[in-house]
Every structure is written in C-alpha cells, then in structure tokens.
C-alpha cells in the first residue's frame, strides 16, 4: 500500500503538490518512486525565476530499469529548486513527500488545481493501475 498524505493534491502522472497560500511545492508520489525502484539519478531542468506552464518538464529521474520525466501540475514562476536532489537522488525513494521536494512555484492560475485529484481519488487511481 503506498503512502498518500491527505493534504496533497495529485496529478495523473503521479506528481503531488502541496499548496500553501499562493505557493506550491511539487514532488513525485510514493507510488511513483516505488514503480521506478532504486533511483540513481535526478536532474532538475528548470531554474529559479523560470516561468513555466502546466505540463512542462521540470525534472528527469532515472533508476536502473526506467527513466521518467516529471511534469509540473501547475503554471507559474519557479521560486526555488531543491539543490540537494542531484547529489542524493535516493531520498526520492526514502522521503518522496518531504526531503525529495523538487520545486517551489508561485501559482499563476489557482484554477488549475481544481481538476487535480485529492488523496482519496488518487488512492483509487493507484489501485486501478494494478
């Protein structure tokens, strides 16, 4: 059973977002890290100050058997990136919701949050993946 914190919203592509005021923090879910298995590499491909759109690639993550792009669930301006992720990508496996946050973003369009799944809906989504 994967861990799905109740206070987060989730995209179908397995990213989570924690919204505090007008700032969102984004990472990938416990289910996603489990699917990838041991992560050996992570690279954030955006920088502080970048204006991005919902769906833009923000990071690339690799394990020995898979590679995945991480997409931003919202549009906005990047206010911080997790500089520690490159040196220790394995934290994505051990702490996907805390230490392995990827970006912090100033939301430009909060309406984009509405169609995202809440924890319950995401839990059902994960179940259906089999």
């Amino acid at each position, binding site marked *: 059973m994967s861990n799905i914190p109740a206070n987060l919203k989730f995209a179908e592509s397995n990213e989570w977002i924690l919204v505090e005021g007008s700032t969102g923090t984004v990472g990938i879910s416990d289910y996603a890290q489990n699917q990838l298995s041991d992560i*050996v590499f992570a690279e954030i*491909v955006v920088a502080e100050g970048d204006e991005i759109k919902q769906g833009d690639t923000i990071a690339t993550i*690799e*394990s*020995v*058997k898979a*590679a995945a*792009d991480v997409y931003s669930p919202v549009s906005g301006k990047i206010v911080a990136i997790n500089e520690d992720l490159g040196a220790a990508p394995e934290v994505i496996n051990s702490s996907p919701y805390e230490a392995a946050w990827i970006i912090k973003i100033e939301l430009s369009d909060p309406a984009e949050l509405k169609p995202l799944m809440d924890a319950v809906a995401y839990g059902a989504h994960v179940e259906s993946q089999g």
Partner: protein
Amino acid sequence: MFTPHTDADREAMLRAIGIDHLADLFKVVPAKHRFPDLALPPAETEMEAVAELQNLAWANESARDLACFLGAGAYNHYVPAAVDAVLRRGEFLTAYTPYQPELSQGTLQAIFEYQSLVAALTGMDVSNASHYDGATAVAEAVNMAYANFRGKRAKIVLSPALHPQYRQTVRTYSTDSPLQLVGDGPESDLNAGPEALLPLIDGETALVVVQYPDFFGRVYDYTSLAEAAHAAGALLCVAINPMALGMLKTPGQMGADIVTGEGQPLGIPMSFGGPYLGLFATRKEFVRKMAGRLVGESIDNRGQLAYVLTLTAREQHIRREKATSNICSNQGLMALGSAVYMSLLGKNGLRQVAELNYHKAHHAAARIHDLPKYSLWSGAPFFNEFVIQCPLPVAEINDLLLEHDILGGYDLSQDYPALTHHMLVAVTEMNSHEEIEMLVEALREVSNG
C-alpha cells in the same frame, strides 16, 4: 545448409504440435502471396561458394597489389596477427550483446577496457562502447549538443575541413530539424585555419565541430578555439584520427567537450569501407547525455568485482521515444579489435608507428615538393596526409599512376570545386622507401609526358 532436422525429427515434432503438414503452420499468411517462387541462383555447397567468392575477390586490385597512397578517412595500416586471432574466437565472435552480465563478463570487461583506452588516448574522462563510424559519431555529437541546451541553441558551426562525408551525414540526420548548420559553405576560405570559424560562434551556437588532423591533413592546436566556444557558452567537438594521437597533443588537453573519431586505423582492415569504428568520448559532466552503451564496474552478490551495462535508462529500450538516440547495436567486435591493437602496441608501439607515419609522410612530401610542377598546398604542420598541387587534373594523374601499380591520393575536386588540381596524399608505415620513390618518379613522368 545448417538445419539439423531429420525426417524422423520433423514427424515427431508435427505430431507433438498436432498438425499433419508443415504448410499448415502458415495458414495465417494470405493465400495469394504464400510461398512465392524466389528467383535466386541455386544453392551451392561450401566448396562452390568459396570458389565463387574467391573469383570475386580476385577481380579486385587492393593495397596488397598496389602501392597505396589513398587515405581520406580510411587508411592502409598493418594489422598484427594477434588481433584477428582474438576476434575469431567463437566466444567473442558469436556472443550476443551483454545484457545478461553473468554470462558475458568477457565482452563486458573487454569493452570496459576499450572505454578506458579510448579515454586515455583522447585525454577525455569517459568513452562509450562505440558508435557505427566516424561520420555517425559526429551526427550523434550534434544531437547531444542540441539536447544539452534543450533546444535553446540551434546553431552548429562545421569546419569546411571536416570530412565531406561526415558533414553530409550530419546534414541527412538534421534535415527538417531546427538545426542551422553553418561554416562549411562554398564561400569558405579553405586556406584559413580554425580562426576563420571564430566570427561564426555566438550565443546561438550549440556546437563547433573541427577535425584533427583535418581533412587536408593539417594539424592545428584548437585550444583558443575551445576557449572562444566556451566564452560564447558553446561546446567544442573534435573529430580525430586516433593514430595521430600516438604522438600529438590530445583534444582533451585543448579543452574539447566531445571527441569523436574513426577508429579504423587501430587494427581494422579497410574492407571496402566497413565495418569500422565510431569513437566517442566526453567530459564526465556530459556522461548521461552521451548516447550508446556504457560498461561500468560494480560488484556481484558474491562480493566479486563484476562488469555490467550501466546508465541503460538513457537507451532506446527503456526511454523509447524520449531517448536521445535510437542506437542499439554498437561496433562490439571492432571495439574489441582496436583494444587488442592498442594493448599489443602499448604506449611505445603506438608512438613508434605514429612517428613512422609522420616521417615517411614528411619525406614523401619533401620529395614531391621538389618536383618541378608540383608543390605542397599548405605550410601547416601535418601528420600522415598532405595536399599537393598538381600540373594535371588528379583523375588523369591517378589513371597513369595505376599503370605503375600505384593507387594515387584522393581527388579533392570531387568535394571542393576550387581545388581543381589538388591531391590528398596519405603515407603510412606500410609505404616503403622504395614505394615512395616509385610514386615520386611516376609523378615526375606523368608531368613530363
């Protein structure tokens, strides 16, 4: 014919499957196209096949029959007997790609060592397990540079002295792409060195590509070009002849970001153009952007040192449409051959053969330059190839040289219309003093007659 089945085997198998006729296995194939009559010559036994191939081979004249002064990207070098002895071992020749490391430590360690040798030779941090050839290696370098800048820089500066076939290959790969290829147009000043490229390098440039020695045989130090590229935020790729690196300063020392090359001079026969060996090396910060297989060191579950294909998540079988390249096969056997060659020659042997090439080529160049009506085209330093200006079109001279059993140099007018009477001459350790004299005398005779 290599199928072992007897009639009894076939019958037993059909029974086990539960069908009566072999043809029943193909019912799914549309009837009107099933079992076509192929118009092919009747089958021959091994004896007959060998005789047929022998006749075809005898219809060729080769560097065995002719004194070879032709280079231009493929060279007549000596291949030590031990190289082929290793390549013919069935355990190397008939092994598959080492996807199951427990069964392929031989191939994996050999490729790991090949990577190490290429990195050492080129002065770079890492090499991959090879690309198809020198031309496709440059095309992959272009892709790598473009991907590195995530599409924000689309200009590629190509030296006009980069092998014409390499530039053609890059153009085929980048047809209809956002890439802009500049620097090698018909208006380029072929007499100029790499400084002619400086004005083209700017904030749009992803990659600058030069050759070392260049297609005309000239040797330049690309250090200031590397500095200029880096100052503009661009990368530098140097396409090498690995034999020249037996004695010359490495592109790594000059500041190159990517080194590609044609590895054929390292113990691979000319074989009418292939299979050859695409060398590809880079700095450690680019290792994940490099296409192609990589062998890494690790340990096994018994605590032993073991080798394995690594960073495979970059490759096509996992990334699929997101892979930076579609490359699957490498040139495994040729990489192995070049590693055996480099081990056999070692640090002293490779330097020795490089210097032999150097001295013979310089002697030949001096002798030809002394001939009235011929002159050396460039005063730049060179390794084992140089351009001579001739009194007649090169095609005519080469016809006459053939009558003396000499394979003349490359006719540059085929690729560079301004170089109407210019021949690219290659001299290697295989050209004896006598052969060089023969060439000089024949050239003299041709210019008189």
